[in-house]
């Protein structure tokens, strides 16, 4: 059969048609799959993609939630960088926060998962629950509020006063010098969440034969095993955990609100997220808030990109 003979049954070659047509063709062929995908896709588009696009648009307006928006160009962004000292402060806080809690919680999750994985299955299940509990039990971090209550009967104050370290109660969550460290501690405490679970899952899926092969190939110790076998094998889980760590540490806000009130004293724990809700909620300046959101989005995406690059180096 010659190449030129037209045959309806012959599969279309990728090189013969434009990319668009090719995609369309493929979609037609796999229409069942797309049909199955449709409900999620629809919801995803409406509730995730659309808002992101909308907020990019709104960030160029002066929308106030109640009246029609007017276009303002890049004025919001100019204000943000040139006129808004608190935004700069918020950026600084967010970075400190993200740089401390992000990597620490990530590494902590990984190490804890690695250790727990060594335990016998039954004990492992119990210990996993213990570590995971703070993040599933909703507002459990509120116990920190009792622990570090400003009242002289708060636990920390009571203990410190009892042993004579202080004579009058410290206003823990209302004192600029304590707010940030305390919030970081609480964040770390709650951070052993989904990422930690996915690491455990990742560790379980590793093919044991790889270790045997590696042993034959001359692996010397557990660290080498971890670096050359374990981590590269569970790279998808590592990626997942990293994305979560980034979004969590950049989007950290609710805990600070609950513990320190809004805004925190002297903006000591004021993050970009808070700045966003300050303008979006209290001041009804959705346009400006959108600009902040867009920036935060860009920062997160880039952090993501960096982490991805870093992870690809794992095991090399």
């Amino acid at each position: 059969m010659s190449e030129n003979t037209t045959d309806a049954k012959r599969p279309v070659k990728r090189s013969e048609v434009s990319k668009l047509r090719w995609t369309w063709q493929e979609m037609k062929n796999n229409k069942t799959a797309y049909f199955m995908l449709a409900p999620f896709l629809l919801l995803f588009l409406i509730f995730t993609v659309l808002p992101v696009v909308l907020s990019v648009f709104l960030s160029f307006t002066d929308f106030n939630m109640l009246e029609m928006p007017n276009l303002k160009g890049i004025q919001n962004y100019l204000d943000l960088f040139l006129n808004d000292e608190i935004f700069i402060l918020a950026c600084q806080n967010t970075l400190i926060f993200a740089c401390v809690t992000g990597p620490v919680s990530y590494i902590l999750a990984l190490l804890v998962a690695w250790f727990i994985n060594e335990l016998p299955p039954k004990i492992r299940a119990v210990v996993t629950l213990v570590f995971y509990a703070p993040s599933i039990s909703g507002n459990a971090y509120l116990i920190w509020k009792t622990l570090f209550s400003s009242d002289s009967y708060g636990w920390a104050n009571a203990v410190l006063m009892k042993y004579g370290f202080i004579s009058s109660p410290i206003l823990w969550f209302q004192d600029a010098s304590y707010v940030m460290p305390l919030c970081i501690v609480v964040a770390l405490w709650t951070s052993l969440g989904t990422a930690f679970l996915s690491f455990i899952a990742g560790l379980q899926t590793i093919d044991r034969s790889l270790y045997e092969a590696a042993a034959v190939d001359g692996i010397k110790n557990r660290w080498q095993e971890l670096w050359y076998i374990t981590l590269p094998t569970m790279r998808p889980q590592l990626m997942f955990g990293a994305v979560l760590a980034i979004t969590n540490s950049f989007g950290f806000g609710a805990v600070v609100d609950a513990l320190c009130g809004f805004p925190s004293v002297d903006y000591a724990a004021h993050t970009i997220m808070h700045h966003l809700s300050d303008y979006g909620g209290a001041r009804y300046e959705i346009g400006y808030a959108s600009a902040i959101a867009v920036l935060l989005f860009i920062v997160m995406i880039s952090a993501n990109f960096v982490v991805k690059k870093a992870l690809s180096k794992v095991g090399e």
Partner: protein
Amino acid sequence: MKNKLFQRVVCLILSVTLLSGSIGLTASAASLKVDTTGEEKYPYSASTLEEMQDLVGTLSYDEYLASFGGTNEMGAGVISVDVLDVIEGNGVLVSASDACLNSMNDYPELWSGFGAENADKSVYLPSQGSTTWKVDVSNAAAGLYYLKIEYYTPETSESSISSIERKLKIDGKIPFDEVSTVKFDKNWQYDNIDVVTSDAVGEPDSYNVEYTDKDGAYKRITTSVRNGVKTVTTYTLSQDINGNSMAPSPSALPSWSTTYVKDHSGYYTGYFSFYFAYGSHTITLEAEREPMIIKSMELVPADNTSAIPSYEQYIENYKANGLYTPAANGSIIEIQAEFPDLVSDSSVAPTNDNSSAVNEPISSSAQLYNVIGENSYSSVGQWAAYKFQVTESGLYNLGMRFNQSTLQGMFVCRTIKLSGGAYGLADGSPTIPFAEAYNTTFNYDKNWQSEYLGADVTRTAQDGTTYTEREDFLFYFEEGVEYTLYLECSLGTLKSYIQRVEDSLAKINSCYLNILQLTGTDPDEYRDYNFVKIMPEVLVTLLEEAVTLMEVKEGLEVLCGTNGSHIATLETVAILLNTMGKNNGDEIAVNLSQLKSYLGTLGTWINDSKLGSMKVDSIWVVPAEQDGEAFTAKEKSLPRANANFFQTCWHEIKSFVSSFFVEYDQMGLTTEIDEDTHKIDVWLATGRDQSQIWRSMVDAHGGFTYNTGTAVSLKLVTAGTLLPSILSGKGPDVYMGLGAADVINYAIRNAIIGIGGEGVDPVFTTERYTYRDAEGNYTTTTEYQGETNLTFVTKPFNNVIEGNFADAAMDTVTLLNTSYGIPQTMAFAMMFYRMDVLANLGLEVPESWDQLLSVLPVLQSNNMSIGVSYISALDFMIYQLGGSMWKYTDETKYSSEYAGARIDLDSNVALEAFNFTCRLYTDYSFPVSFDAANRFRTGEIPIIISDYATLYNTLVVYATEIEGLWEFCSLPGSKRADGSFNYDSLAGITANVILHGCDDLVSAWQFTQWSTGSEAQSTYGNKMVALIGPSAKYETANLSAINNLSWTASEKEAIMNQMEHLSSIVNYPGSYIITRYTQFAFLDAVNDSVDPQDAMTGYIEAINTEIARKREEFGLWVPANSEDEPPELSATPID
């Protein structure tokens, strides 16, 4: 001679003055009250030191009796007090009282039971003030007396939802603590009872009860034929369009009653006896709540011989009188408990319970009222009464299907009282048939129970020894007689135990305060405080009370037969007390904070034990079964206690499925809304109870819909819903209870319609009249057509607010001379103080900040403090000192567009205020953060400045053990630069607003003014108290509504006085930033010891920048630079 008398009098006066001067602080406090002319008087004279000391020094009843050496000297003969001869006070003859005469004129039906002839024979006692009578006791008659009072419960303009309360004084003093509040029952009846009588000549006598559920209502119909008269009594629980029951409204049933002065706390079962010595005495009734009418007052010799018979004697009496007979053919009478005939107060109400599938009636989709009780029918003294007849004379048992699942391991008690036939007094007042009826017990079970009413009764065995045994009570009922069964919450045999714990708590608390004075709140556990030398009595008390608590615990265990967690609490406390008291008190320091928390635990324990909370589904009158000589309760005649497995499953499945279809936001809607009717959407973001009350008020006969013809769709939403709904154009027409800051936020963004000021829609400035014709059609016109059929007058804005709302309240919802809402609630801070603590320390209630600070060292030397929330102090201090938050607000100097263009916190006055407030927390060590209710309860912070309704509501239910020991009054005042004092508190407002997009402005405006009007507001406030209890006091913004709310006379006076001294912070654009930065500045000063003025000035520019940014957004005037001032108006005002 005369001269000498004069000298003596002068000497006497002088010596008294000197004596009182020696109290020390009294004099110094008094000297501070310099009465400069033009100076503002302290708005509310709080209790004086003397009054507080009197109160604290009052004896308890036991001590009072003991003070006469436990005398058995009974009075001789009844002594009548001539009540018409009022020697002092404001009691007047009914025929001379305007309040009564007006009420008689306007509502003759409320006086039908009064009897016209009594108008000249009885005295009206208003809801405020006191009345004093004189009584002479002859030499031979001296002794103990009961006090018997015949009274009428009038409904006049002074009446509200509360019960009648009076303070009883004999010879000008409260004889003992328990009569510092004497309660007089009012009878309440639900408006759902309808009685029709007709002739039924020739018909045989009969009695029949049936329950039906048709025509959209659940009914009990009782048909009784007696002597040719047929009486049909219909009780109706009406339903909304979805089949949910709607609360019937209780109304007071004015009536005559006779009562002896007795205890309302439940600790003493008999009547109080008072000792009257030979001579002339005065008896005073001082009003606390509600007006009353008194016809007679008698001193009846206390008599301990005619005690109530024991159950055994009572049965013997039956046997002796030939009444120990069966009612063999009598039929079982079923009384559904949700239909009480009379109730003791308006909160005893039917309610819905779907916890069991065999509750009668039950619905899986709707909320039908099918039980009575739970929380609203649990305090001592509350009762519900049921009328019934039997079809054959003989002995009956009473059965009940109930659920008592709150007091674990314990029982709750009801006192059975009966009236009718041979039971009760001649005037129809009920009595207790036998002593054991005091403690009819209902045991704990997490499930429902069907039991006969009974208790442990004492019996005498053949050999003369006595033993106790649970017995189902027998009652003799005669055919054709109407009996009324009263079930009254009581403490029964628990009372002595609870009383001991309460005494114990008081003693431990005073120990705690004693220790606290030595060690402070954080004792050093390594220091030897030498308690055994300094306060040996405290150690003894601790050990004694440990023993007492253990005894009570053991006693309760025997009584209840179990040892649930509730009882075990006592043991825990006892162990701690024992530890602390042992070893010369070495363990006290370590355990002091634990003791503090246990004090709270004990208080809660007492509260819980006193609440006899249970749900009652039905009551059954069952003929007793003859068993040889004796009678026993008929088995299997009571309904099933619990549903079987399949019934439960089926019920739960149905409930689950129907939960998808029930329209919860239509709760209480009675008419389907069709196209033609005027209709408005009203949203509110409160609780379900609150929204149901509004619903019932809108739908009531004579309610909003009836008067205006406008249907209201009332929706309960969550607080954050309004903003998105406006955004999407699906918002309501009227929103109730929007915070003042949001009112301005929405208004400035054109989401709310301006209703007052210049240029508003003419709807808000025109008077309109709504007429309702015979067919029920409504016309609303601007022309007045006479009073006939006039149902609603829509007043213009200015008339609506005139005199009803404080200026301070209106200011917060006004922007640029336009008002955007009518205030609904108004919160403000007042000063709460512990009278007992102040009295013990000999301190007057401070009237100014200077006095407050002069009191502080005394408190602090006793390790106590003063509690003020810094957030509110920062604000009100500025206004008290005559400053303002904003610049350019003076209307005579600046045009309104400039108001609020800058912050005025950098003015001298504001900085001084800020400095003063910060120093309270730094120099004077006020606690910055504290748990107000707890520390007030223990007395560590005996003076607290807090929002009045919030703290009041908390204390009323949370700290019942200090009931009557605290009061609240106006804030202390600040001395302004010109020497005058100012007592202002700051008003916080929520308002009702009309939103843009509303297309029926007239109806929306009618609703707004109706709902904020004094009538609706007082009805709402009273219904809240009726439904939820005394802890649901409502802080209405309507000044004229306060009068009708159920505060006591003195509380009312205090609130109304503070209402005359209010300021507010107006919400100009950018106002949110102020609180933020003032708090930052404050915390800088407190945490880092920054100079307060420097701290504040450092934030001024940031605040002004933010304000300028916000004003620019709305196109308002913004100062171009820091020197730029707005132009002043010409000196002469333009007319």
